[in-house]
């Protein structure tokens, strides 16, 4: 196997959009969304990155742009090296990315999960359904604008919902969780506080 440094150089020679990505550990590259599938295929065929370990996405904040980045982790079963490939989704409101199910069947479920929890549409995916949440669930829970407690939602089974009048309710957080926010900020802002203290189990949330 070639040295990891060469992978970035070789990729850059073939795909001008490739740039090195800051990383705490493995070799990582950024690639334009349009080149993503071709670059991954090139990595699989020429550099023996044959095992697709993981497909996921990061939401960089509600008002960030680009907001969503899709991240692939590859492992070479012969060279024993990891590689991280990341591509920003062009559209922040309706993020989309080309599917890699044609290259690795493993991508099928990973992409379904990313679609389910992050709301990224993988174009040409053969069977893009929700996988962890139920069919028909209206939100994408891992997005940063989705509250930890959840949002009131109708039960998946309409008959049961009508009969019982029950619904999926936000979790009672008792004003918690008490955590500091992520990111570098001054101490006053970083002071841990409840995410939303306006309501708890005794007094209802103000509308």
């Amino acid at each position, binding site marked *: 196997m070639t040295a990891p440094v060469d992978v970035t150089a070789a990729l850059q020679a073939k795909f001008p959009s490739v740039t090195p990505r800051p990383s705490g550990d493995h070799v990582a590259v950024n690639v334009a969304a349009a080149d993503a599938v071709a670059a991954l295929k090139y990595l699989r065929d020429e550099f023996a990155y044959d095992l697709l370990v993981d497909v996921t996405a990061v939401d960089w904040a509600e008002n960030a742009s680009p907001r969503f980045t899709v991240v692939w982790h590859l492992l070479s079963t012969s060279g024993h090296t990891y590689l991280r490939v990341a591509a920003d989704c062009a559209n922040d409101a309706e993020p989309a990315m080309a599917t890699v199910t044609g290259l690795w069947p493993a991508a*099928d479920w*990973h992409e379904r999960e990313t679609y389910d929890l992050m709301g990224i549409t993988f174009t040409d995916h053969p069977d893009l359904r929700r996988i962890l949440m139920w069919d028909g669930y209206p939100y994408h829970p891992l997005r940063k604008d989705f509250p930890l407690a959840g949002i009131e939602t109708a039960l998946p089974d309409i008959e049961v919902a009508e009969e019982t009048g029950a619904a999926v309710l936000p979790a009672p957080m008792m004003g918690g969780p008490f955590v500091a926010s992520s990111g570098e900020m001054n101490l006053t802002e970083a002071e841990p506080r409840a995410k939303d203290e306006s309501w708890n189990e005794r007094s209802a949330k103000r509308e």
Partner: protein
Amino acid sequence: MATEFAFPDNAAKTAANAPAEFQTEKMSLAMGPSHPSTHGVLRLQLELDGEIVTKCDPVLGYLHRGDEKIAENMTYNQFVPYTDRLDYLAPLANNVAYAIAVEKLAKLELPPRGQAIRVIISELARISSHLLGLGAFAMDTGAWTVFLYQFTEREKLYKLFEELTGARFTTSYTRIGGVARDLPEGWTGRVEAFCEQFLPILDEMLEMLTRNKIFMDRTVGVGVISREDAIGYGLTGPNLRGSGVPLDLRKDKPYSGYEQYDFDVPVGTKGDSYDRYLVRGEEMKQAVRIVRQAIAKLPGGEWYAKDAVRIFAPRKEKVLTSMEELINNFMIVTEGPQMPAGEVYFEAENPKGALGFYVVSKGGGVPWRLKIRSPSFCNLSILPKVCQGNLMSDVVAILGSLDFVMGECDR
């Protein structure tokens, strides 16, 4: 009606390819979510032609708790108990994998003793997980005795875990930068004693299955996963090695000092359910080997990283008497250990396969994004392919041989 998949026997093939007027109606069957052989809450939406599975659609999410969302809302150390509940048959191994991932982000290096402790607990967790996997697999294929044998052994392991961590099941033993406490006095001796008596019992257990006519009939040649499929579907752990791919992260990407230990990586040749069983059996013996070596050369010294003072709460007597420590304690408790910005991905060779954590940090005490790559999720994704064309009763054997845990799959 020509179909592509391999049939269990010629009679089945003839039946499937019979003219249309002899074809019968397909049956749709929901196997699970509470079915004894789905080991948790997995639902298989099967389409059956007689006894043959023509389509299998796994339905997941019955145990989805949103662990990744929860992780974004708590400090790094607070998330350790949640890792217990991923693969709840090997919580210690999950604790270790998570801690190493965050330590990579924090650039913390554990001293040899801390690493050796983690190796010992990971391997004990592997034995405990494989034992249950084996027992449940045997029970699914009709051998009840093994299940009782292995639970006796797991009980002994639980006693050791309880002594070490204070909990039998939800251990939460690691911290970022170390482990919660050092090994108790005399604990390694008791682990040694366990290993001593365990090996003959393990042999006895395996003897009950390895040349067992019924067990072999149920598993040999059933659920064959080719090498290419195993890699393509992202299988890891014993399931990948059962298909003949010698990928073991302990050997190939050594972490926590695994490179010092001498052990073999068993691989299968055919990739059927029987091979996966053989691989797990041998892995337990290798795990015992590793535990023995780790105990034999267990180094002294500290069991947490030197730089971890930023992370560990200071000693109580210091907090009560010294200003510095009081402030430090306050900051750690309220804000969590401060991490640099960056992103890391770490996978550990867990009993079920490679458990990975992708941590994205923007700095501060809380991860911005924590993705859990669970081996059971990936291992199950091959089900639609491997179940197709098999007998309904073989689905049970295939599920048992894949050894998955839904707590980890659904997260």
